[in-house]
């Protein structure tokens, strides 16, 4: 397991937090130790890939951009401050790689954009924490609702809800102020609740 799932028992909300990698491994990677960099990849490869996929919704593109992210990270290891979190730094690089890819796609007039991904079926059917499967239909509805969010809202929603980042970390990754992030997250939740009202109403028995 490369992450800790913190369960806030008295509030009942599960939050995914990725345990940071040890400073010794980071120091070794900075001095050119490829095994140490491999350890960083093993720890953060999955969350970074998932994050990128949540932005582009194209798995093969997400894999390509994840590779680019780690190559760029290796090239710029010396820019990683000793007190910086590796995950925040990597997510920041990933975000820049995605943006550049989107700009390049627009320049090349490809039929790919962050807001119009290919309709790829979700593969995973792992049970939810309470033991019930999220149905395929619900998964697709959530995916569609997320795709319809604009880039900034989707970004903060992904980082906050899917990756458990604090506002401070998200601000470091995106360059946006905490005020803007809170506003975007609030608006994202309103839009999603509006689109998924039937499902949310069904889950809790209360108005969404």
């Amino acid at each position, binding site marked *: 397991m490369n992450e800790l799932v913190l369960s*806030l028992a*008295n*509030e*009942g*909300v*599960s*939050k995914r937090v990725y345990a940071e990698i040890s400073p010794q491994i980071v120091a070794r990677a*900075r*001095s*050119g130790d*490829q095994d140490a960099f*491999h350890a960083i*990849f093993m720890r953060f*490869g*999955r*969350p970074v*890939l*998932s994050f990128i*996929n*949540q932005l582009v919704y194209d*798995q093969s593109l997400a*894999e390509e951009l*994840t*590779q680019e992210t*780690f*190559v760029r990270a*290796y*090239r710029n*290891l*010396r820019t990683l401050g000793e007190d910086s979190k590796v995950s925040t730094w990597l997510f920041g690089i990933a975000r820049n790689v995605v943006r550049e890819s989107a700009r390049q796609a627009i320049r090349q007039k490809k039929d790919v954009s962050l807001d119009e991904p290919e309709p790829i079926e*979700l593969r*995973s*059917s*792992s049970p*939810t*924490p*309470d033991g019930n499967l*999220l149905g395929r239909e619900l*998964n697709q509805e*959530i*995916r569609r609702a997320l795709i319809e969010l604009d880039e900034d809202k989707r970004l903060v929603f*992904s980082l*906050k*809800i*899917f*990756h*458990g980042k*604090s*506002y401070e970390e998200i601000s470091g990754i995106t360059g946006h102020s905490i005020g803007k992030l809170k506003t975007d997250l*609030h608006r994202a*939740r309103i839009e999603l*609740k509006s689109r*998924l009202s039937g*499902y*949310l109403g069904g*889950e*809790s028995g*209360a*108005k*969404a």
Partner: protein
Amino acid sequence: MNCANCKEELVELAYGELDPRISQELRTHLESCSSCTLAWRELEAELGLFTAYGQNSEIQPSAGMWTAIQSQIREIEPAPSRPTFWQNLLGSLTVPALIRQTAFAVLLIAASAGLTAYYFTSRRASTDAPISARVPTVDFKPIPEKPKEKEAPAPTPDIDESKPKIVKRPSDDEILDLQVRRAAREYENAIKLLDRSIAKRKSELDPDSIRQYEASLAMVNESIESSRIALREHPQDPLTARFLLSAYSRKVELMQEIAMR
């Protein structure tokens, strides 16, 4: 704490973003307010749904991704940080035998040739003119006519025809020349070995290091060449000999440095 404030802060409470004092106030309010408790339950359901979706939609990197990354980062190997003293010391023990042997041999040659050149430099300073029976004291200022005087009336030693011929002892200049040639030959052999070793490793080295190495090598080669020319013009000058050997030594050091990367 009122209900409006409470409902605004529930998401922050869920994600631990609130100050502990405010968190406690909220929890206290939730214990006694059914409306806010209902809002909290709705939030739990909403965040639970999205968290489950996030976990379901996670994807694992493919098996070949690290291999692909590794092949790219090999080409952009970051410059290693300066090794510590102990790393240098321990590193020398792991250097390939060839390079260690080369280094040791060159060290011996350099020491020998360097001492010889130094000896002759010091001796030359103290005994400038050749010894002549006509000159009672050593004159440091060379007098051009003196060698002629030495040659003509200088008494030759008696030679006993029955005894075997005494081999003439090489002059100081000849000794120096011999030492320098031997040292230069040994340096050149070491350089050939290192050159072969570097050629094998060149594809593994980063382009910047190769460029720097080639630039430094060009300067050292120029230094060797100009020392050789100077030595041809002044073959008896031990200082020039020392310059040449120093330049060779620098070239070997440079090559060892790149070969050991």
